[in-house]
């Protein structure tokens, strides 16, 4: 089941450049929440702070607090590795492990965390690939084809399956469809629609129609600040802030 995400006073830096200023945001469980905003506004940085990927960049720094369910993400003694198992992530560019088979790609998260039981792995691989709507396309070449040999859209669904296999509670998606053609994009969107029954989904997107299609809630970021957060419908029809309105009507960005 999905869990809520709470960010409070969240600040982030790359070296001396501040990328996020005092973000406070409550993301509800079992819904899809879209993060929109122009390039460089900090939307990717924000989701990368949620699973502590931000700190893997040299000289990057975070201050403030994030709670995911009952876990204090930046609390003392919360191991980042443990946390990332509960918070799955899908990246902008599909990034399957190029030399692993389809099966090994999906099983990687479990295997590298020490699960060896073949039956359990088989089960998890099939379930994840079915959830990612990829099973029918790859079931005959699980062990014979490499992840890199799939098409771009299939690779992205493979990456989603790989993230699902470790059974996270939250799914972060950083522009998951921006490198995909329209058909693959709609497949990924359908997927998000189904996944939110079981997961809390945060999706960064450049595409406002996409935000409107898949997300119940939308947050608008501008220059490292959260300008407005509300029901998606509200953001796109009657935004409170002038800057939100300017952005969604295409006056800038």
């Amino acid at each position: 089941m999905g869990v809520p995400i709470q960010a409070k006073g969240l600040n982030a830096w790359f070296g001396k450049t501040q990328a996020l200023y005092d973000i406070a945001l409550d993301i509800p469980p079992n819904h899809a929440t879209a993060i929109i905003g122009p390039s460089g506004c900090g939307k990717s940085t924000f989701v990368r702070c949620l699973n502590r990927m931000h700190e893997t960049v040299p000289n990057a720094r975070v201050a403030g607090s994030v709670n995911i369910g009952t876990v204090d993400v930046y609390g003392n003694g919360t191991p980042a590795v443990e946390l990332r198992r509960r918070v799955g992530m899908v990246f902008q560019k599909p990034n399957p492990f190029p030399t692993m088979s389809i099966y090994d790609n999906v099983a990687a998260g479990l295997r590298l965390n020490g699960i060896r039981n073949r039956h359990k792995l088989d089960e998890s691989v099939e379930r994840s690939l079915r959830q990612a709507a990829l099973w029918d396309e790859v079931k005959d070449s699980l062990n014979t084809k490499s992840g890199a040999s799939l098409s771009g859209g299939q690779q992205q669904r493979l990456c989603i399956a790989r993230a699902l296999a470790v059974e996270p509670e939250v799914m972060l998606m950083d522009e998951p469809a921006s490198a995909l053609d329209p058909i693959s994009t709609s497949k990924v969107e359908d997927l998000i629609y189904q996944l939110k029954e079981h997961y809390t989904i945060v999706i960064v997107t450049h595409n406002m129609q996409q935000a409107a299609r898949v997300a119940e809630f939308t947050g608008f970021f501008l220059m490292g600040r959260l300008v407005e957060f509300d029901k998606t419908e509200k953001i796109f029809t009657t935004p409170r802030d002038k800057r939100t309105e300017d952005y969604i009507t295409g006056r800038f960005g």
Partner: protein
Amino acid sequence: MDNDKHSGHETHAWKVSFGRRVANSAATIGMACAAVLVVTPLVVIFSYLVYRGIGALNWSFLTQIPKPVGEAGGGMANAIVGSALILLIASAIGIPLGIGSGVFLAEYGRNRYGDVVRFTADVLNGVPSIVIGSTVWGLLVVTQKHFSLFSGAVALGIMMVPTVTRSTEEILLMVPQSVREAAIGLGISQWRVTVSVVLRTATAGILTGIMLAFARVAGETAPLMFTAFGNQFWSVSPNQPASALPLQIFYYATSAFEELNRQAWAGALVLIVLIVGTIGIVRLVASRGLMKGAV
């Protein structure tokens, strides 16, 4: 080019200037020549080795040990096995050390300590092999008071380290950051990410580096003169002086007996075939199945 005739006003878009066509042909021919020039020395060396060596190459050459000087026949079986053993032990020393330090440089070496290791590896790469041989002689042979197969393997193993280190580092840096991020994002520990994802992705490239190092030391003669020394008899003990193909080739090529000169050529042919064969087998194994997609 049909467009030229039918749509007159677009014709100029299709025309390539004479100068460009000349430049294009010149560049193509130039690169073809360069490719041929690269292959030529290997073909010449190999053909000449076959021409000089094939006469002395027969079954007993591969299966017998040297006969006493003056007697006809005999072979290099002990040198072939000696070379194989020396290279096996040298690889066991040089490859893990090289990969380990290569991983360190690529994943944790963006700092002053990394620069020191990098510089050391480059200097070690430039140290003449005879110096490495005499150093191992001073440290191992003198203290143990005898030449040995093992000391030869140590000398060659040390020589493998810098090549493997630097090529491993280069290849690991070519593994896209996105692959590391994917693994970190799955909640895999740093150690596992490095070993099971990054190294695995780079396997084919690392193998190429290992093969380069292997081929380089397989033909080394100078460091073995101080260490493995050579042996006219059958010996597979790491503690005894051992024969090796380059040594045997050297001794026979400088001999006054024509029979032995001929055997030296045959030995050189066998050495080349064994090196090319080893590289071929490793490449074949590496290119099978999924590793094909590796960096």
